[in-house]
């Protein structure tokens, strides 16, 4: 039986995917995700209740701040909670992937310096963990909407499409920050601020139609944020609201660009990581 011959050369181009083995990336991401889940609620009192408690608290906070204090209203007479919570699970997913995935390389530098495994597995493992929470939160919303509106339909393809958009956009951002932070940890210092900015600029707690009063002609700039398309997408799927604004393409293109460039960035950093970390 002849065995596979691997070759490594100083002249290998970093984007060369000849030795790229997605199965391996996935199996290691899976192992890390398992570790995270096993460790997740170690030494907590309420344990797994937090999988439900976290989205509930986030929802409650948004309700208090944006509905009761700021008094934002949903369009077309839709109930505010139904409207705002439609895109909340996707935001929580995005936030979780970025917040946990970005520092994952720096946090695991000890393992990185000793074992050669595909580095992308670390940020990717956070996606696997995040998906579990996303599933729980989406199910909670599905039931909430059903009880409130009496509507129990579920558009599988749209749901999968917008979920994938969330994952790819989040991964793209995460790959970028994770890759750069192996050299410049400054990026980890401003990460919470970045997340906060992204939240405020995303139409989660308010409708994207509010954008129209800002920036005038140049409104497309706000659509550079992929969360805009994702958020509008989830609303259109749960609530059959109007989706298309001519600028929304910008968001979809950004999802694609972010992911591809992030992938390139982390591949580039991967080769130098052990020397720079």
């Amino acid at each position, binding site marked *: 039986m002849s065995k596979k011959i691997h070759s490594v050369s100083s002249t290998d181009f970093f984007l060369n995917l000849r030795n790229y083995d997605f199965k391996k990336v996935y199996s290691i991401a899976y192992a890390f995700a398992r570790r995270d889940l096993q460790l997740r609620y170690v030494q907590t009192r309420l344990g797994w209740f937090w999988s439900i408690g976290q989205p509930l608290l986030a929802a409650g906070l948004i309700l208090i701040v944006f509905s009761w204090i700021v008094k934002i209203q949903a369009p077309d007479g839709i109930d505010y909670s139904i409207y705002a919570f439609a895109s909340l699970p996707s935001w929580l997913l995005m936030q979780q992937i970025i917040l946990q995935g970005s520092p994952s390389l720096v946090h695991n530098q000890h*393992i990185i310096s000793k*074992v050669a495994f595909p580095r992308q597995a670390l940020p990717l493992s956070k996606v696997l963990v995040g998906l579990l929470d996303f599933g729980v939160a989406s199910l909670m919303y599905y039931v909430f909407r059903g009880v409130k509106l009496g509507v129990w339909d579920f558009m599988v393809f749209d749901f999968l499409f917008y979920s994938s958009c969330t994952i790819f956009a989040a991964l793209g951002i995460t790959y970028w920050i994770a890759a750069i932070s192996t050299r410049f940890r400054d990026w980890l210092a401003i990460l919470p601020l970045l997340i906060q900015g992204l939240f405020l600029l995303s139409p989660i707690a308010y409708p994207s139609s509010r954008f129209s009063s800002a920036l005038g002609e140049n409104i497309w700039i706000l659509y550079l944020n992929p969360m805009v398309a994702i958020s509008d997408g989830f609303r259109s799927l749960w609530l059959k609201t109007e989706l298309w604004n001519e600028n929304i393409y910008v968001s979809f293109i950004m999802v694609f660009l972010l992911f591809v460039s992030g992938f390139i960035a982390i591949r580039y950093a991967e080769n130098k990581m052990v*020397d720079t970390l």
Partner: protein
Amino acid sequence: MSFSDNIAIQIKNLGKKYYLKSSESWALKNIDLSIEAGSALGIVGHNGAGKSTLLKILSGLTKPSTGSFKYRGSLTSLLEVGTGFHPDLSGIENIYLSAALNGMNRKKIQKKLSQIIEFSGISENYIYQPIKHYSSGMKVRLGFSVAAHIDSDILIVDEILAVGDRSFQEKCFRNMQFQINQNGRTVIFVSHNLFALKELCPKAILLEQGELTQFGDSKKICETYIRNSLSGISYLDLSKRKDRKGSGEVRITKLKWKTEILETGKPAILHIAYEGEEDLKDFNIKISINGEDGRFLSPLSMHSNNFRPTTMPASGDIEIHIEKLPWMKGKYYADIRAIERGIVCDDLRMAYKFEIHGGNYIQGGDEFNSKKNGVFIPHEWNFPK
């Protein structure tokens, strides 16, 4: 060039350049090497000679700056025992994690789980406990057990045999022999334990300042290595030695016998000087006296001797008094380590060479003639009553 079937790894013109504060230095240069499938190769060299860099490149942790290499089949590197272990996870969960990191899938791990646990010798009640409750010895045993059961055509092993207690070390050693001879693995082995290296690897390479200077019979390579290191070192001025490890908070600056002629059975004083920045607490100096063949013979340690001053000045001198030198005629060399509060501050291999000029250990006794290094132990001969 063709890559013939009996070759496991072929290395061509491999080099690695590092940039340090705008100046560049080559950690590794022009390495050409072919390793036969099913053989074991030892790598010998000082700290900083490029051993770790070579292993890092071969295991895929870092990219070479020049050249290339090819290998056949799967390759796993074990640079550390228990990498990826998490204190809050149980023994079993840590086995899965560590093995997965080294490229094993869950099915394979499941198949080998009972073997791994058995090899580690960790009992049923402990294997389901978080490993933060393990002793350090147990963690090491678990780590090596995982490493020993990884399926791979090529294994790169760095110094991991130097773990655990004596009996477990021997178990690991036998396991390595088994991997090579029975399983037909190709093994690249790095160890400061030249004795183990010679036993495991028929062939070895010598790395000096990033270059491969010799390739051949491992016994000869080890001899050359020791001879070169002994001749090239300035013994009186340890402070100029660069090939040290450790945090650097304390440096050993001197290690020298005060006694001029060393004879077996005669008294002698070993003088040590050290330099640090702050007063030292819980400080320990450990010296290993090794024979000419690299085999460890005697420990000299403050803590082993229950000498534990509560504080010591930042810099100073210390002496070891030996009433009767126990070593037989021959050449010896000493490794020295300085440890403060459990942290290794300085680690110098082959810090000092000395020669014992023979003599009798017991007054009136004969000199025990042997070409090998050896240590006398005080004992008595009696007729049974």
